[in-house]
């Protein structure tokens, strides 16, 4: 049996539709972000100033560690660079926030479309029993008590995070590492959500 026939005959072939729509949405969102944010001079300037400040701060910290003492002037200079870095990060966030509203509308519309298409329908089967917090999303809107039934919302969430994060990384649109809020679990750039 051909792979395509096998997949289309699968009970959960709707999951492919969810993934396909997620991929298209991710591409459209990044295209919009590029148009409104990434290609602008303001963004490029802010980005490069954050990268420069982060690298400068890193160098200064390494130097003061190596010297085993901190001069008062060095600490003051580090504070100034750190303040400048925080201000640039804040400006970058604000800048992206204004333009991110359009992308947010697109995502909202797509989620609404998917919801209308797959409401109450299990689009995949989980190979594990999720914990209760996860099950609130994975079993959202589904009938029955089978905890391994997977709703569109959970699958869409997984698609969004994995596809968009990696797409942003691949295209070089990820937030700079020096910016505040990178955190333990870096999400796709939230200002373009």
């Amino acid at each position: 049996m051909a792979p395509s026939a096998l997949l289309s005959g699968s009970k959960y072939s709707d999951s492919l539709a969810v993934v396909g729509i997620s991929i298209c949405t991710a591409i459209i969102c990044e295209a919009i972000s590029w148009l409104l944010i990434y290609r602008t001079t303001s963004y490029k300037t802010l980005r490069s100033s954050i990268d420069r400040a982060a690298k400068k701060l890193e160098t200064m910290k390494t130097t003061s560690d190596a010297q085993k003492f901190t001069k008062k002037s060095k600490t003051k200079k580090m504070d100034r660079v750190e303040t400048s870095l925080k201000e640039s990060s804040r400006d970058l966030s604000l800048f992206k926030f204004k333009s991110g509203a359009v992308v947010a509308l697109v995502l909202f519309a797509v989620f609404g479309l998917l919801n209308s298409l797959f409401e109450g329908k299990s689009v995949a089967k989980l190979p594990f029993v999720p914990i209760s917090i996860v099950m609130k999303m994975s079993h959202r809107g589904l009938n029955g008590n089978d905890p391994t039934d997977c709703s569109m919302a959970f699958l869409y969430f997984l698609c969004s995070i994995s596809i968009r994060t990696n797409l942003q990384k691949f295209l070089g649109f990820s937030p700079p590492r020096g910016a505040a809020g990178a955190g333990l679990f870096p999400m796709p750039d939230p200002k373009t959500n």
Partner: protein
Amino acid sequence: MKEGKSVKSNGQQHHHDQNGHLSPFKFAKLLDPEASWDKDQLGDVLHWIRQAVALVCGLLWGSIPLVGGIWIILFLLISSGIIYGYYAIILKIDEEDFGGHGALLQEGLFASITLFLLAWILVYSLVHF
């Protein structure tokens, strides 16, 4: 004192390839313990290694299939072990120069977890039902 890798600026790391293709130099650097790494470059490499491990594990475990939450824990251990082995043993990186073990191990972690779950769930659902 542990032999560490110096952190150099991006400007010193560029390899000029007129054809624009990935040169053997770049691939050789991935396995070269003598190479110098920039923080961003190393972070990117670790990110993509995590994603590759996530995809392979997800596809494999969905195909067999492996069922149960324990395999999520095992995936985390395996992928973190691979990342740690890569930067500590193959590259012989001094983690202090790159923000410590935490910073290196968390590169691409969340995206890899979601990618792993996505691949695992999709393959399991499509192949076995």
